[in-house]
């Protein structure tokens, strides 16, 4: 029986992503707000972020120093502002590379299967078996600190999650009719992989990436917190917090404000990730 099959319930008009998902909008808003200090710190910051002065030591927040000053008399507000760029770049750069590399590996492992898959999965097992922080610290220690090596460290440990995600997705989609069809039509593997499979498996790791940005920022901050991150006196939220640590009983503001900034930006990215996953979930149904 040829009955034109059209589902009356689901044929919504295509509504642009943004209209559809609130959390993405808010997330983007937060991130954009944080982009301003990231791009034009010099216009926003009220003081130099390195200038020390004995008189202004450990001043509580005031009209002169919005967020107060640290034990060098440096203006916390300006330092927080200048940090934005660094933390933002850490978050993004540290995510992109594992996202690309990890996803590709997952794609290959999932599609070709057999020994390729086996080998990759064993390597993955090994990375899974090694404690994350230990590896990062060890790598940073081997390469020496500094942002560049911090990236490398996070890259080396970060790819595995994407590989797992993509691989599992590929395994599912691999046996679907349209892939089989493509094979029968004799398309080249690379074409099938990139044109047909990739677009369909990437979504979940895109979502993960959005939340991973936050994780990377936190990891970066944590490393600075442990004295393995960016070099002083360059400001970075984590290092400001760890610097203020000695004063939490007397000068809470040093610790407090950079934390807020970190949460603000982090929430922004999380919201985006959350929104994306929502859309995918609804699509999935």
């Amino acid at each position: 029986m040829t009955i034109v099959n059209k589902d009356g319930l689901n044929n919504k008009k295509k509504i642009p992503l943004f209209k559809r998902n609130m959390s993405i909008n808010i997330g983007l808003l937060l991130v954009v707000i944080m982009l301003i200090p990231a791009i034009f710190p010099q216009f926003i910051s009220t003081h130099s972020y390195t200038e020390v002065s004995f008189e202004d030591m450990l001043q509580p927040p005031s009209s002169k120093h919005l967020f107060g000053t640290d034990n060098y008399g440096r203006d916390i507000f300006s330092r927080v502002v200048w940090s934005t760029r660094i933390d933002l770049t850490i978050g993004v750069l540290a995510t992109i590379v594992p996202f690309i590399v990890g996803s590709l590996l997952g794609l290959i492992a999932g599609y070709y299967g057999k020994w390729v898959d086996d080998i990759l999965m064993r390597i993955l097992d090994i990375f899974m078996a090694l404690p994350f922080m230990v590896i990062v610290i060890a790598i940073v220690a081997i390469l020496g600190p500094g942002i560049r090596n911090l990236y490398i460290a996070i890259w080396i440990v970060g790819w595995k999650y994407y590989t797992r995600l993509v691989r599992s997705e590929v395994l599912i989609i691999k046996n679907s009719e349209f892939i089989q069809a493509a094979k029968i039509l004799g398309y080249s593997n690379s074409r099938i992989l990139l044109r047909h499979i990739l677009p369909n498996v990437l979504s979940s790791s895109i979502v993960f990436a959005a939340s991973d940005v936050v994780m990377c920022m936190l990891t970066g901050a944590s490393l600075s917190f442990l004295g393995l991150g960016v070099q002083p006196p360059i400001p970075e939220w984590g290092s400001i917090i760890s610097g203020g640590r000695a004063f939490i009983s007397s000068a809470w503001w040093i610790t407090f404000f950079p934390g807020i900034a970190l949460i603000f930006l982090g929430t922004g990215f999380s919201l985006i990730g959350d929104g994306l996953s929502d859309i995918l979930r609804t699509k999935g149904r």
Partner: protein
Amino acid sequence: MSMLNYAFKRIIQIIPILIIVSVLIFFMIRLIPGDPVTIRLGPKATPEMVRILTIKEGLDKPIPVQYIIFIKNLLRFDMGNSIVYHIPILVLLKKRIVVTLFLTLFTLIFSVVISFPLGYLAGIKENKIQDQIIRTGALVALSAPQFWVGLILMILFAVSIHIFPVGGWGDTWLQHLRAIILPAFTQSLMTAALLARNLRNGVVDILKMDYVDFAKSKGLDDKVIKNRHIIRNAMIPYVTLIAMRAAYMLGGSIIIETVFALPGVGALMIESIYGRDYTVIQGVVLIFALVVMTINILTDLTYAYLDPRVRFE
């Protein structure tokens, strides 16, 4: 394949991984510049002093030889002595592990207590205000750096009002209990957030499932539907996630333990890396690897147990 064969197969797979891990870690940490002796003696030690101590600690032997010795001892279940503390790794580890276990346990308890009701509520109230609030809360919790939260909580509950000790582990079990609450809570926030989201999404999906309607159409009351049809199904991914988090935390939460000055595995780990206490690092990493892989296997088994659809290949 039966569950037993499956478990056995997986356990066999552990061995080669352990070996590779041992090699990796053994040589990796020795790649890190700086050796335990010079670090301990400090910059101004004379070469003579360094020489004496290096021999004393048996670090003068070529690395492959050291590895062989290490493996030999390992096969006799002897991980050797800490270079810094001069006592057997296992002795050193024992109390550290207690701390970390304690921390992990309480973190999980907090996480579940927080995440279960919230996650379920958010799930059944999909897109309603409760859901929005809970999800936003979870997001914020996820983006809050643990060391920051820890410090803030410390200011609030240990410095301003002395409800909890400011870090440390204490001597009596009672002190341990008081000492663990803040760090455990701090650490639980992120896990709770993850769990709550997981449960929420699980419930949302299940509520869309026909079998819930079918159960309803059979005239079951909400309690039965909730317990037998919604929660039970939602538990599967939830429990799995808990296990994964547990494995992660057993590695020792370096940050938390640093902030709260807890003598756990994480703290030991970082001390040992700074002090280049090779033997300790090797020992801890190997044990960690073992624990993680064991938990992974257990997770898969529980999963299979909870979800009859899973078959073993």
